[in-house]
């Protein structure tokens, strides 16, 4: 069984859950933090992960099927998405293969739009992912089919506020631009599709203006000391 060590969880890959491909995500103890805090965070994040996963499914967003939750080992057993790449890998592959940035961008545009539509659906259901990055999105099968999965909901919450949705998009923007330098245009495609897909135009406007506000908080903050 292959093991991937993340910052707060180990992923055991290539497992089998009664005949179905399975991965085990085991949150391990973080010895740097107070045991009470550690326990509370671990349990809270397992619950958030499972809850948001299900809420996304109910909203029609693809997430891995959860097979089992083991609170004794802080593990979630879930479906291993077969033949999948992360969106981060896919974007890097396309950008590396296409020497012309403009044509890479136009090739990736449908994906950006699919991401925007998915996030709109997610926010319409008041699901805040909390850690949106291109590593937390998977493309199953042929990437051109845009079979998009969202994963890693450990930092998620259930909030209706424009502030939380705006911050969620801000987190994605920062992660997106740091993982994929010079891809502002692609991120703008995500936002455009997000705006287009959101039915409640006023609510959407509020989210985007919160996003602008949070962006400025970073740029305009007076930093003393």
């Amino acid at each position, binding site marked *: 069984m292959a093991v991937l060590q993340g910052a707060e969880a180990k992923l055991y890959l290539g497992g089998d859950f009664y005949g179905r491909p399975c991965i085990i995500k085991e949150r391990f103890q973080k010895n740097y933090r107070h045991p009470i805090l550690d326990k509370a965070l671990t349990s809270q994040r397992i619950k958030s992960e499972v809850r948001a996963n299900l809420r996304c499914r109910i909203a029609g967003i693809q997430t891995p099927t*959860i097979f089992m939750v083991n609170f004794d080992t802080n593990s979630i057993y879930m479906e291993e998405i077969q033949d999948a790449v992360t969106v981060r890998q896919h974007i890097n592959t396309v950008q590396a293969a296409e020497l012309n940035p403009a044509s890479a961008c136009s090739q990736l545009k449908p994906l950006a739009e699919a991401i925007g539509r998915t996030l709109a659906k997610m926010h319409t259901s008041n699901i805040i992912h909390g850690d949106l990055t291109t590593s937390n999105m998977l493309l199953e099968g042929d990437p051109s089919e845009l079979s998009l999965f969202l994963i890693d909901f450990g930092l998620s919450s259930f909030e209706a506020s424009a502030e939380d949705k705006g911050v969620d998009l801000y987190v994605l923007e920062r992660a997106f631009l740091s993982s994929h330098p010079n891809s502002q245009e692609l991120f703008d495609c995500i936002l455009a599709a997000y705006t287009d897909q959101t039915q409640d135009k006023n609510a959407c406007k509020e989210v985007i203006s919160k996003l602008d506000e949070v962006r400025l908080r970073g740029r305009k903050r007076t930093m003393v000391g």
Partner: protein
Amino acid sequence: MATYKKIKHVLYPDSTITLALYSGLESCKDLRKSVMEGTVVASLLKPSMIVDPFQVLTAANKAVHLSRTNNMTTKNVHSEILFCLSPSKNISESFRSFGAADSDTSVFVAIVDDAEDKTLTRISEILGLSPVSIDDVASLADTVLITKAYKLSEEEISTYPILDALVSRIAAKEIITAGKGKN
């Protein structure tokens, strides 16, 4: 009797789960009586609420784990399978919706740790029938009833196989059901 399945538990290899399906029964009355009297120790489930044996396996897997970790809600592992299968946190409601009834003409059986298939053999004797293929349960499933019981959304049914929706809910039951939850 090559049609039933006996499966090792993923976490506890010393434990097995036996699944079997019987159909074409006159009634389930005698079998239920034996279970209630304790002469047969098994979980008797309604095939109309089951789309795939994997659904039961998920519930049984969870029940065994809860039993091993002393976290069961019901009194034994076989009633726990029924409770795990049901999305309700109400025990008697779970039994009503997911447990076999006297008048049922088919029954899905789940048995934990059935040494030498003694229980399964006994069930076949009581029913006077051999089990059919467990995969036949798909044809007995009442998806309208299931969709209602598990409160599946339209978006969900159009995005996923119904089985995956049920499995996720079974795995996550105590987390998504407010009021009852550990940790």
